[in-house]
């Protein structure tokens, strides 16, 4: 066991929670705790990354993750450069690796990358000299989202170990679900994934979670319900018949909330489709911590940027 006080962070990259130990995850959360206070100051800046350059490579659309990283970097006094490209960089004839190498040649210390292809940050971490932080790769991982989710759960409920967390929605195509399952399991929570069989691959149980296809069956027994955004583009594949039917089966509403534990925590990674995966009274009610998640995201990303800049391997 590593003593918290003596823990030495070694990683130069954060490509996924899969690679991290429980101690490393806790160290990120503890570091984030110490950065949380910075946002409450009148001068919201520390010099931790002064003189460093953070490049944000967003090959896929993002609003909150990108802004959160941008703000986190600036609060650490780093300079940021932003690259955005819709769709594949190949469409323009340049590979992801070449794009990154060109930007690296301008003198970059940390890459924050979001990419539609699973494994893209892993490839860059192997080939580049700079640090690489995964801001979402395809349907694979979104480690900082899971870290901020776990951070928020710990803040609200005081612990992770022994909790039971439901993740509801399109599990098959969700990187948020994967990173949450991995992180929560490593810290000793139970996880049940909930959704129709077309959106919940049976093989996901190999990641250590339970599967339930009926939301109503788990309501009374869980401490946290993390509700994923329904991705409308998925209907083309006939993965579910209609939004109306989905909402009937998996939509969180006041009536369902009544059947939950009194202090159940309602989470959502955003952006919400109000009235589809949850009603407004739930989203804005006392059990919801959706905006707190966003606030905490900043502290978590400051912690991650800071830690990888200290990494040696």
């Amino acid at each position: 066991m590593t003593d918290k006080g003596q823990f030495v962070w070694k990683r130069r990259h954060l490509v996924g929670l899969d690679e991290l130990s429980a101690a490393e995850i806790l160290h990120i959360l503890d570091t984030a705790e110490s950065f949380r206070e910075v946002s409450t100051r009148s001068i919201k800046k520390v010099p931790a990354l002064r003189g460093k350059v953070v490049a944000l490579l967003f090959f896929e659309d993002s609003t909150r993750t990108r802004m959160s990283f941008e703000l986190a970097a600036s609060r650490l006094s780093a300079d940021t450069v932003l690259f955005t490209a819709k769709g594949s960089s190949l469409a323009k004839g340049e590979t992801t690796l070449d794009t990154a190498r060109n930007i690296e040649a301008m003198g970059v210390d940390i890459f924050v990358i979001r990419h539609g292809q699973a494994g893209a940050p892993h490839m860059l971490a192997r080939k580049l000299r700079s640090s690489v932080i995964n801001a979402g790769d395809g349907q694979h991982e979104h480690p900082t989202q899971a870290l901020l989710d776990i951070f928020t759960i710990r803040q609200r409920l005081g612990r992770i170990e022994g909790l039971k967390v439901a993740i509801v929605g399109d599990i098959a195509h969700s990187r948020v679900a994967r990173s949450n399952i991995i992180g929560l399991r490593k810290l000793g929570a139970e996880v049940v994934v909930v959704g129709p069989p077309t959106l919940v691959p049976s093989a996901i149980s190999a990641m250590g979670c339970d599967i339930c296809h009926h939301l109503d069956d788990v309501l009374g027994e869980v401490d946290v319900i993390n509700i994923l955004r329904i991705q409308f583009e998925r209907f083309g594949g006939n993965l579910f018949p209609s939004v109306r039917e989905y909402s009937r089966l998996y939509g969180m509403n006041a009536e369902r909330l009544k059947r939950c534990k009194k202090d159940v925590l309602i989470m959502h990674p955003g952006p919400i489709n109000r009235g589809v995966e949850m009603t407004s009274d739930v989203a804005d009610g006392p059990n919801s911590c959706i905006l707190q998640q966003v606030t905490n995201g900043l502290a978590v990303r400051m912690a991650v940027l800071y830690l990888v800049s200290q990494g040696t391997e």
Partner: protein
Amino acid sequence: MNDILITNGRVIDPASGLDAVADVAIAKGRIVRVAPPGRISRRAREVIDARGKIVAPGLIDLHVHCREPGHEEEETIATSAAAAVAGGFATICAMPNTHPPMDDEAAIQYVLQRCQEADLARVLPIGCITKAREGKELAEMAMMHSAGAVAFSDDGDGVASTAVMYRALQYAKLLDVPLMQHCQDPDLLTGEMNSGAVAVRMGMGGIAAAGEQIMLRRDLELVERTAARYHMCHVSTAGSVRLLREAKAAGLPVTAEAAPHHLLLTDAACEGFDPVYKVNPPLRTAEDVQAVREGVADGTIDCLATDHAPHAAEEKELEFGLAPFGVMALECALGLYVKALIDTKLLDWPGLIARMTINPARVIGQELGTLAAGAVADVTIIDPNRRWTVRAERFRSKSRNCPYDGWRLRGRPVMTIVGGVIKYAG
């Protein structure tokens, strides 16, 4: 006087049931005689001492992507042929998913002409089943056959339309050649690797075993109706092995091949997102690997074939999801088969050699793959105990996408003779 006399080797010729220390005499491109040591006059232009070595019929690979015409930056017929003889192969079959696809007489003649110019391994062309590999209209199979095509395949894709496949099987009976099917239902080709726990964890779309088996089941039904010859390419799933076993027991004219990667690698290899492990059909599970090995051992799978698929380095430097399918194996295949099948005691040397010589020769109906007197003098001499390390950078192939780079293997071809001429000596 004989041209070549190979002395004192362990001569293994599964076609004639021979496995004994013997001398082999070659003249005018043909096998003259195989006889116990010392019985043949030592007066020959070249005497090769094969003591401690295996003397086998020239190895045959039914499934090679030579990339020419169209992707000469990845491989050419000449570099394929050079790689082939270095791997012990006297004969390789060239798959027609080139650019343009080999779907007419001229394309077949082109391959044969390039093969002649290279003058190394024998390269036998496979023609497309359908025009432009589009799966719609039958290609001119009879004309391609007269020009030298030995089989037909739309490899890379299966023939999706049941009606087209039915017609193709009926028509191919005219020629008594096999249709070689890449079994994959296109509707179920929804990913980049095997579906299962590894793909789910990686967030990758999956290629279900069912997609292979559904097309195989359909085709077996059509083969039963037409009694046409059918060859299943690169068997990758336990379910396919079971279906083939049943089909053979029922007496259907079905043959099959297995590739080294489906005998040695599982989908767990994809975990680091390295596209060198991206191949179609994909790497499956350990149970599938075991079933394919057993299928080869019990004869359900008749042949070993590499599905050698070279790709340019820049293509395999892409993200896993964007990189093309394919792995190379031509120059290290023999050692890989030894590792998968002999080291595991599933096969002995005669069994392995049968699956690399006479069995594939029978699939394509060529009088090759034997050391019987009068046969074409294709001979591969193998050092069965030579331990060596695969070094992709030394390949004669143009590409380097080889998942076995750095592997330690046992068993290596030391000489390849094609038509009575030494084409490789290592």
